[in-house]
């Protein structure tokens, strides 16, 4: 099964509302794409469409949060974080409000819409904000669980969702634990730390490396902030080397976060698989994964390089 993480957005909102959680969603004219339309259909009174006005979207959500609601916001990652950054910083985070940004269409797998719409800097922007928790779920089940835990945990959250199908990594009913990285495969030679859609690529890379006699440990760094230092240190203490894998710029994202903490806690040789310091471009998602060097074969190559 390969459902997109964005599909979890509307599903989680409807589930939470049915359970009596006081959730609302504020959308900026993208409800069908982000799937917040599911909440609009089931609970119209819990849905606010601001039109094409992302700054207003974030601050209307802030106001709803001040009134006592758990306020989710939609739109695409590029607009929700970039266009409305000051609103996220100065109102949501500075006031520590229960606003949960769950924009979709992150990364190059947006596809043909091209570089203007492929957000590759959102993790960098969001993780530097005090008070912000940053989650990058690997698949539909993890996304639904991440959205649930965000709704039930006080404070600002950023949940990074994608447009295209993500191979299933976690079973239905998986419970997301904020701040915990998951060791999905144990190994001794190299650590592959991935997030989002790259988790399944890292698992494939580990399979390929195993055929060559290389034992790769795969860790899902599903919480980019606060990052799970202990799990990372434990792993690299054993393997001595790490490849970070993310559908994001190599600047400022999960790979940077991992490098920051390991450079202090347990310095090891590192390779960062991600998009080089560049914008995206039009193409089919699979072509773009290949073009920008994000596939399992690129991850395996980086691991071999470290072992070489």
């Amino acid at each position: 099964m390969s459902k997109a993480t964005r599909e979890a957005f509307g599903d989680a909102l409807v589930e939470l509302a049915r359970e009596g959680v006081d959730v609302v969603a504020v959308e900026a004219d993208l409800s069908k794409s982000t799937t917040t339309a599911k909440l609009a259909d089931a609970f119209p009174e819990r849905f606010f469409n601001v039109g094409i006005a992302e700054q207003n979207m974030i601050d209307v959500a802030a106001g709803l949060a001040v009134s006592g609601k758990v306020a989710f916001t939609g739109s695409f990652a590029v607009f929700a974080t970039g266009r409305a950054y000051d609103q996220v910083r100065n109102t949501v985070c500075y006031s520590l409000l229960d606003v949960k940004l769950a924009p979709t269409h992150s990364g190059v797998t947006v596809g043909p819409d091209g570089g203007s719409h492929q957000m590759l800097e959102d993790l960098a922007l969001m993780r530097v904000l005090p008070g912000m928790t940053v989650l990058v779920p690997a698949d539909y089940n993890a996304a639904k669980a991440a959205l649930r835990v965000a709704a039930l945990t006080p404070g600002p959250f950023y949940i990074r969702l994608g447009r295209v199908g993500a191979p299933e990594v976690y079973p239905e009913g998986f419970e997301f634990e904020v701040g915990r990285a998951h060791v999905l495969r144990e190994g001794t030679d190299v650590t592959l730390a991935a997030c989002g859609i790259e988790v399944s690529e890292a698992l494939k890379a580990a399979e390929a490396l195993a055929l060559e006699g290389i034992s790769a440990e795969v860790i899902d760094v599903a919480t980019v902030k606060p990052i799970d230092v202990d799990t990372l240190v434990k792993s690299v203490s054993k393997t001595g080397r790490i490849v970070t894998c993310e559908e994001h710029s190599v600047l400022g994202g999960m790979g940077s976060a991992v490098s920051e903490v390991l450079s202090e806690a347990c310095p090891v040789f590192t390779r960062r698989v991600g998009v080089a310091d560049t914008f995206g471009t039009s193409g089919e998602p699979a072509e773009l994964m290949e073009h920008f060097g994000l596939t399992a074969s690129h991850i395996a190559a980086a691991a071999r390089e470290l072992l070489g």
Partner: protein
Amino acid sequence: MPDVELIQEKAALMRRDIVEMIAEARSGHPGGSLSSADIVACLYFGGVLRHDPSNPTWPERDRFILSKGHAAPVLYAALAEAGYFGRDHLGTLRKLGSLLQGHPDSKKTPGVEVSTGSLGQGLSISCGLAAGLGSNPGDDRQVFCLMGDGELQEGQVWEAAMFASHHGLSNLVAIVDDNGLQIDGACSEVMCLGQIAQKFAAFGWHSIEVDGHDVSAVCDAFADARSHDAGPVVIVARTQKGKGVSFMEGNAGWHGKAPSADETARALEELSTVERSAS
């Protein structure tokens, strides 16, 4: 009926506090704090805003959002005067460890609903707040949002203006402190705002224009706003920047500058016509 004399007395006390706290802090924004003192006094001491200083998070309270967050001193003066915190805190404005940050910080100051300071955001926040509170049938809690006129140059204000009328937010009252000046000079010269009341009207709001220093008229405008149940209301209050201190009045230079010791003494002398009551 509002007690006009009481409001005027409170406004005068607030103006003294504004000048004193900014002088003590050696930085801050006197011009826009003084221009909105009468409006804020009407809200807090004219029976407009339902609130309980002994219980800042009283669920039934109305909400006040100071969108023009640089006018924090006027809010702090009102909150101290109302008893949200001790007056001794006023002397700590803008200092390390203070409850009273340079711009309102809801994490630190009792009575501050949400942090502001980056202009153009308060009306959006107020829209969300009004929509959230108004989702309860029969709920008559009101949301008041005070903006500067220069602030209306932020495009987000008009995104919010559309939202408010689209959703018929009749529990939302915006007030524009229309003092005509911004940091770089006259608003009309920096970036002309045109007819503010008409602009809001064109966005589907009920607009009321009033002299922002006539507390009786301001209270009447708030009463009109509360009785208006067909969408959001804006009160465009014509004011004078620096009102109450002759050498600050109508002078953009006093937007964000602290008075010297000599200027402070002169300002307080002018404002001393209303003596602080012993209590």
